[in-house]
């Protein structure tokens, strides 16, 4: 479980996060949603520690990230997996070597055990053995995301962060990736935080959602009640697509 308490973050006098507090439970898909520039990426990077929050607490199962020393943060990061927006696979390594990489850095496994574990993770994300020895540039965007997920789970992380996992993917592949992340979250009881502005993801996998607007946490809830909230900013975000507007219009006409 990750708890965020009263987190503030400013860049050169510009306050980007204003007193954010939220709890992200394990085994659930915790989604951070909001418009571009709302501060959701800054919030995620502050939770991970890529940005240092100005004030507040970020508790990983009770351990405050902001009180940790460099060595403790390094240790904590071995429990963290992250899926980046652009996958961030290492160009110079093959698909298999990308997944082996964290094992080679931080485990005491033999080479054979590492290969076995990496192959298991790649199969778990539905990749075939034919792609194992290809380089990241030789596989599609969807496959790259899967490799990135496999790499993120290689060390059995307790916490998984996904920064816009659907960016650049078609709706069908996006759905596959969303479901895969949800399956893995539930299977390994991981605390997963997903940063997204894709409403399809919200409706498919959002167990717990927080909505960030202009650096403030404007709403918290689940996908079941997101349509019935009286919050102008959230409504504007949720019903931004023409399709939703048409559906809503039709519903209003039907009433």
């Amino acid at each position, binding site marked *: 479980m990750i708890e965020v308490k009263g987190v503030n973050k400013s860049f050169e006098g510009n306050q980007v996060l204003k007193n954010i507090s939220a709890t992200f439970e394990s085994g659930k898909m915790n989604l951070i949603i909001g418009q571009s520039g709302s501060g959701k990426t800054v919030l995620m990077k502050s939770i991970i520690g890529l940005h240092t929050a100005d004030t507040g607490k970020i508790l990983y199962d009770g351990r405050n990230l902001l009180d940790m020393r460099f060595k403790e943060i*390094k240790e904590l990061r071995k429990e963290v997996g992250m899926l*980046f927006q652009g996958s961030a696979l290492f160009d110079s390594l093959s698909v298999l070597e990308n997944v082996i990489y964290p094992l080679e850095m931080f485990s005491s496994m033999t080479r054979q055990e590492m290969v076995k574990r990496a192959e298991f993770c790649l199969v778990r994300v539905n990749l075939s053995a034919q792609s194992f020895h290809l380089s990241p540039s030789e596989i599609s965007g969807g496959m790259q995301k899967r490799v990135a997920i496999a790499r993120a789970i290689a060390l059995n992380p307790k916490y998984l962060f996904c920064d816009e996992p659907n960016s650049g993917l078609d709706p069908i592949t996006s759905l596959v990736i969303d479901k895969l992340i949800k399956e893995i979250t539930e299977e390994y009881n991981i605390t997963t935080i997903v940063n997204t502005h894709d409403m399809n993801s919200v409706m498919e996998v959002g167990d717990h959602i927080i909505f960030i607007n202009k650096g403030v946490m404007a709403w918290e809830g689940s996908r079941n009640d997101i349509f019935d909230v009286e919050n102008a900013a959230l409504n504007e975000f949720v019903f931004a697509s023409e399709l939703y507007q048409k559906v809503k219009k039709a519903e209003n006409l039907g009433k």
Partner: protein
Amino acid sequence: MLLVTLFKHIGSYTLLMSKVFSKPDSWRMFFRQFPKEMEKLVVNSLGIVIIISVFIGFIMTVQTKLNTSDPLLPTYATGLVTRDTLLLEFSSTIMCLILAGKVGSNIASEIGTMRITEQIDALEIMGVNSANYLILPKIAAFVLLIPCLVIVSMATGLVGGYFVGIFTDILTTADYMVGIQYAFIPYYIFYSVVKTLFFGFIIASVSSYYGYYAYGGALDVGKASTNAVVNSSVIILLFNIVITNLMLN
């Protein structure tokens, strides 16, 4: 303002170097990266070093001979001038300026691209000391092997000068051979090698610094690459004055 920027760069560079020169997270990974960097930065530079040295050695001999036609000068003077120029400045300083262009831009663009594609963030998230993992093998490989490039440059430069005697009639090979052996001071080779150890460190570390702190897109990686080459070259020239004064004065 300029001074503030300069101190900011010096501070960031020092902090980066303190991260670079720490114990690697995995020695196994370090020793795997090390030979790859040796090949990429040094072995792959061998061709350009040989080509430039041979041609410069040749043209330097021709120019020296044509511009020193005084009958009072001994016949071996051309070989002697070529040898000392190659040993003292060309093979160390000028060759390092050329390598700053080739190797420096390579390092800065590689690390810069890793930065903008979030590969460095991915390493940090995994708990890897990214500066140490990416930069230390480059510095170690380049500093350790750059003296070899300099010695190759000296040797091939002298061979280039020898070709003047073979392919033209302005100088005999016998005069040239006497010249390059006359009043030879072995300390010059030591001086050149010591200089290049410093220059190698400057090229690898300054280029890594600009790549590591690159941000934005492809254009910014290009800028980082240019800054790496320009600034390493300027620093090399400054250090050349200091080291020459210390070692030859």
